């Protein structure tokens, strides 16, 4: 549905996109992640035919963004980053206006606006001026506008930026309800959201694609992607010694002075952070058994999976220094 090949963009002497390749299959929700300044919005502006590329090609729904830009614009619903709306119009008028620009006949427009008012939660603010809306409501209007003409492709640039958790959940439900019917490219740097909403993630940093895959695939690539944390009453050095020798354990780190607020002082508790050799294996049983054999008291054992944040920071770290400079 979206095919990007060797896309390059220069802003004067600055290289913003360096030969990006991207493939979004039909009906999938793909998240486009990256630090600020990485090139997400630039890529999106090129895909929506707002801006030209310096080199390379992009095809949406089979149409080239440069030579068939009107057909591309027919096929997409776009929510820009700052969601600029005409603040002097009413919500309904705004939707009607853009419906007209998409060649929707009046009856169809009315029907769609009624449907979307329900679907996007706009029924109570249809007659309100856009300039008087809260950010969450403006975002809903922007999404309704993108969905209005029922395009096969949706491109959303930071759709949940600045929204409160309830609104974020609503928008997420809205987006996931469209999976399969529409192809969605969603750009964000809110990683938990990307994980919950998207089937596939593409990470861009400093103009280059640095990772692609499902959230689980990416998390599995984090160094120390899984860890077990045990809090034991025992001598820290002995604990480290014993655990390190266990099969299946790659690395043990001890945190000796673990103090819980309000609990009695140091008094012999320590926390062991254990990294298994194979992130997929579960070594909790052998750890628990070992502790029992040595008569160590356990007060907590938990299994920590690497988060997408850790992967994101790892994979974008070297580049983010350049971007910051």
């Amino acid at each position, binding site marked *: 549905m979206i095919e990007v090949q060797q896309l390059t963009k220069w802003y004067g002497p600055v290289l913003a996109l360096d030969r990006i390749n991207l493939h979004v299959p039909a009906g999938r929700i793909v998240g486009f992640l990256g630090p600020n300044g990485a090139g997400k919005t630039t890529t999106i502006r090129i895909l929506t035919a707002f801006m030209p590329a310096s080199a390379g090609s992009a095809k949406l729904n089979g149409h080239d963004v440069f030579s068939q830009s009107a057909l591309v614009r027919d096929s997409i619903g776009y929510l*820009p980053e700052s969601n600029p709306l005409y*603040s002097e119009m009413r919500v309904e008028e705004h939707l009607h206006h853009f419906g007209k620009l998409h060649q929707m006949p009046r009856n169809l427009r009315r029907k769609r606006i009624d449907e979307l008012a329900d679907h996007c939660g706009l029924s109570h603010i249809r007659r309100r001026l856009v300039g008087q809306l809260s950010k969450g409501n403006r975002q809903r209007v922007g999404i309704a506008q993108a969905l209005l003409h029922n395009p096969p492709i949706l491109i959303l640039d930071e759709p949940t930026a600045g929204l409160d958790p309830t609104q974020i959940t609503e928008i997420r439900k809205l987006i996931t309800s469209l999976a399969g019917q529409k192809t969605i490219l969603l750009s964000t740097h809110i990683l938990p959201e990307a994980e919950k909403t998207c089937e596939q993630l593409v990470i861009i940093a400093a103009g280059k694609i640095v990772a692609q895959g499902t959230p689980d695939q990416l998390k599995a690539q984090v160094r120390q992607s899984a860890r077990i944390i045990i809090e034991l009453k025992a001598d820290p050095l002995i604990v480290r010694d014993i655990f390190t020798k266990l099969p299946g354990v790659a690395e043990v780190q001890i945190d000796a002075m673990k103090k819980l607020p309000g609990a009695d002082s140091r008094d012999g508790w320590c926390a062991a952070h254990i990294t298994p050799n194979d992130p997929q294996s579960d070594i909790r049983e052998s750890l628990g058994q070992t502790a029992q054999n040595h008569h160590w008291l356990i007060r907590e054992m938990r299994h920590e999976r690497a988060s997408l944040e850790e992967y994101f920071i790892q994979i974008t770290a070297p580049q983010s220094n350049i971007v910051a400079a």
Partner: protein
Amino acid sequence: MRNTLAIASRELTSFFYSPIAYVVTCLFMLLAGFFFLTVTFQPDQPAELRQLFTVIVWILIAVVPAISMRLMSEELRSGTIEPLMTSPVSDLQVIAGKWLGSLAFFILMLVPTIAYVIIIEIHADPDYGPILSGYTGLILVGGLYLAIGSFASTLTRNQIIAFILTVFTILIFTIAAALAPRFLPNSLAPVASYLNVNRQYDDFSKGLIDISNIVFFLSAIAFFLTLAVKALESRKWR
């Protein structure tokens, strides 16, 4: 075509939301009213609006750029150009729509001057030929100045700069064109004369609708609107 009209109607209604529209109309009416009283509505003056129309063409140099300055500049500044240009509309439809919307507003701004026609009708027996042709000419002059303003507006997101560029360009077509013949060689002097808007308007104020004047205005309007479309298209190449 439907896109053009949609954009035009949106532009027209949005004029009424902005205070600029009301301020400009009031000032225009104040000036026009002042000249009506001092020039036309005096004892022994003929019952015609000809001199008033001629003055109004000069007033328009300041008034029309105030209408046109926000046409594209506002979209560029607020970012609404992004959803606009990513809808299936062409650059020509956008420019033509905005120009038509502003022209409709301009005509509405002229409507209160019908009061002057009514006043002289009450007191005398005016000749309606020159009045009608005078209004026709005013609409053409307004259309031209709006086309210049549309072009200036595509060049900058700052409305003040758009205003200034428009005024300066219009001054070239009025004052500069009037004074230039003295400094130009004989072969070029008629060119400068031809480009003088006030001269082209003259026939309209006399009651003459001459095709050559209409051609001037329509081609100048087309010229500036084309420049505006090209300026908008140039985004594709930057």
